């Protein structure tokens, strides 16, 4: 039988990778970094954009948790919000519109040692990437998910998004959005294997920080919807709530998001046990009040990367196994 074109020596591709053979294992230096150490280039968001506050909270979280920058990965899609990884000194992957979650899944699947975050806008997550969102909830991998919800497509300049309030005008629906908005919280809570669902607002920095902290501590798919102001295209959607704390209601519970220091400003409080899924679904329905806090948490939900845990073999062991596999096909 003639040797195949791709058989031994068939293709003279440079065995380039051999120079990488000496594998030096990573050394994480034991040093403590401050928030500024996680900052990279100067953000290009508009003045007053809520994305700035999220970036600050994220940097604070990284410093607070002392996450090694080289072991931390921020994956994002496309949108104003998805620029966030560029402004961090961690590893980042600014991918394509709507597809942050598949990439994050791939990263985490084989590298459970990495701290993986996904950052998406509402168009990114709830429209073009909605299919991935639903399934990522089911996979329940240990990924911290930040939905920066400004209720509009901002990067592409003012088109209606799935979360735009009904009647709110945009360039594509100038007479106002035709449809009632999609509610990212109830959707997430409706999916099998949901394990962590919280809502916060970027203009309440301590709540934002505490929510991110709780999300990061949860082992599973931690979904955080962050109400985010876009002063350019949706200046009035959250403005009333910013000015009038009476429009905000804090969910409180010992296992929830700590609200210390917020008591004076935010008087509306609602006791809610995050183990109560039905209560969570009811509270997640929008009734004019913005509820901030932990809606649901289930630490026992199975995680895909654990379910799929695999044996580790050396290359030689794999080849020996493969040789045996060929016996099955021997003539």
């Amino acid at each position, binding site marked *: 039988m003639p040797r195949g074109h791709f058989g031994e020596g068939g293709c003279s591709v440079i065995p380039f990778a051999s120079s990488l*053979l000496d594998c030096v294992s*990573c050394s994480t230096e034991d040093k403590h970094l401050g928030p500024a150490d996680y900052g990279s280039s100067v953000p290009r968001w508009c003045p007053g954009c809520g994305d700035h506050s999220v970036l600050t909270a994220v940097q604070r979280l990284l410093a607070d948790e002392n996450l090694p920058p080289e072991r931390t990965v921020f994956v994002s899609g496309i949108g104003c919000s998805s620029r966030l990884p560029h402004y961090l000194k961690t590893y*980042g992957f600014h991918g*394509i519109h709507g597809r942050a979650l598949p990439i994050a*899944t791939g*990263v985490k699947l084989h*590298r459970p*040692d990495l701290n993986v975050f996904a950052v998406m806008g509402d168009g990114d997550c709830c429209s073009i990437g909605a299919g991935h969102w639903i399934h990522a909830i089911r996979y329940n991998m240990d990924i911290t998910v930040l939905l920066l919800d400004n209720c509009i497509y901002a990067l592409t300049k003012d088109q209606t998004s799935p979360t735009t309030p009904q009647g709110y005008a945009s360039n594509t629906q100038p007479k106002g959005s035709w449809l009632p908005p999609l509610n990212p919280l109830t959707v997430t809570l409706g999916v099998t294997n949901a394990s962590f669902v919280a809502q916060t607002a970027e203009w309440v920095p301590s709540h934002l920080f505490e929510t991110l902290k709780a999300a990061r501590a949860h082992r599973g798919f931690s979904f955080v919807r962050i109400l985010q102001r876009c002063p350019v295209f949706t200046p009035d959607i959250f403005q009333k709530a910013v000015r009038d704390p009476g429009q905000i209601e804090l969910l409180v519970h010992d296992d929830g998001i700590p609200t210390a220091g917020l008591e004076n400003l935010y008087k509306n409080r609602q006791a809610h046990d995050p183990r109560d899924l039905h209560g969570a679904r009811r509270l997640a329905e929008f009734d004019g009040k913005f509820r901030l806090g932990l809606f649901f948490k289930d630490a026992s939900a199975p995680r895909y990367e654990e379910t799929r845990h695999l044996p580790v073999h050396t290359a030689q062991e794999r080849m020996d196994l493969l040789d045996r596999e060929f016996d099955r096909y021997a003539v």
Partner: protein
Amino acid sequence: MTDTTTKPARTSASAVAAANPRIIEAREHTVEIVSDSGEGAQKCGQIFGAVSAKMGNGVWTVEIIPAEIQPPARSVAGASGNRIRIGSGPVTNWGDEAHLVVAFNEQVVLGRHRLEALADDCVILIEDMWASHPDEAVRAAWTAAIEELSSKPYRVIRVPMEERCLTLVENARKGKNMFVLGMLSCIYGRDLQRVKDQIAHQFRKKSQELYEQNVGLMELGHAWAAENLDFRVNVPGMADTGEMVVMNGNEAIGMGCVASGMDLCSMYPITPATSVSHYLSEVFEKFGGMVHQAEDEIAAIGVAIGASYAGKTAFTVTSGPGLALKTEFIGLAIMAEIPLVIVNVQRGGPSTGLPTKVEQGDLLSALYAQPGDAPRVVIAPATIEECFHVVVTARRIAEAFRTPVIILTDANLATGVQPFARPKLDVRWHASPPDQSPVSAGKGPFEWDTRTGLSERFIPGQAGGMHTLTGLSHDEKSRVAYDAATHQRGCAMRSRKLAVLQQTLKTPEIHGDAAGDLLVVGWGSTKGAIEEAVDRARAEGLSVSSVHLRFLSPMEPGLGEMFRRFKKVFTVEINYSDDPSDPFITDENRRRGQLSWMLRAQTLVDVDCWTRVFGEPLRPGQILQAIHDRCPGATSGKGGAL
């Protein structure tokens, strides 16, 4: 016995003749087993093919697949089964027409007849229960079919399959395939012990009782043929074939993935690619590999890209419609220079097209589907053996050149079964573990060697290498940059890599003389059929050669020079091209075969094409005809079987 021929009378094999059968000596023979789907014809064919390979025959087995899972019973379009071509030497393709057909009903054989799949002197062994079926409509259909078949000088022999099987089992539908296996074993003189061993292998997950029943049915068929058939076929095998393995192209791809050290197969089901993941789902975990069935093709490639970015070796496997969905992600992998292997098992298009049938219609979309300039590597294995090795090559190129590599196979390779030399495994085929050493300060993830475009990548976990990959235009540090010079440079660097790879490739070998009247150029699964046609043409004294391309992007060097040594060059492809004699078609507006299109642009040679989209592999005879049409001195006429 019932071995009476039907009206109009043609031949009759009498018991007297059977006692002293005529031996047909053949260098090669092609047999088809066709049934309604679910009657087990494919299993029978697989066993027969494997036994023949073990007896030293060259074998090519291909599935005959209806497009629907359960087409209506007894329908012309529902023919399901196998074609097995066996030879005294290596067999590289499915051949021209079948010399023997075993049919479980008259409608399925009618389907094959209408597709001109049967040789004029074909022997048809046909289940005869339908002739005396209680339903008048069935009897009428039988009569009409036999009448239609009589337009050719086939020899039709009626076989009481059902009746005989019922002497052993209650439901003959389940066991007829083994009866047929027995008949074939008798006709072709197959070693019965090997047949039994292969039955045991095929049904290894089933009970001993079932095995015994199957062997009983097989022996029943053997005995019937021995008593009633007046002919045998002798196709001697090769004495020493060395150590061989036998599998289909998708299994070979799956094993290639293991051999290349892949960690992840991320996929979404689509015919005819899915069986790669079926195979891997069965075995991959024990190697430490994972099959991830994603929510769609977009996610499938996204997960593979994420894993590769994180330092693992990953591939995704799909077919045309899935490749279309992966388009945007492939562009990202090119832009962010992420190693990735994408296997596209081509089927008929466009759109859902011909899901189970072969086509080579995705070449241009594999090359050009992305927005902007998106250079990537595209390779097409030509044989089942190459399906195994190509993955190792592709994985290496992907990593060395930080690029996606698309492997184009097709339904013909995917389902074709062929023995080949058992590969001698080499641990160096595996990916080396990713470099995790700290990155020196200030080093960027795209510090291109400006001569080659090559650069070193860092993966998460590597201290000091932190950066954000992006699909936006970027500089050496992966900083987003929209300025003219940066974009121009990035495009140049990504493009340069292909030139560098091209420099490492060899000019493909010519099959035949290095100069002459006519050169046939092919790619992918058509190699065997093209070379067989060229051999026949050369035996007729024609000055014809062929060359087969594995690398479609970048293309192998020396093609223009090679082409200029021939008076005419044409490609043979399984994709659509306008027929120059069709209305409105001119030399200027003619849409050509995809490879010829590329070759014309690349070589400035007037490369013609001959293409067909019949939804089946090309037959050597058809290609020979195309050669005759282009050769001045050719004896015209149909290129028959050897």
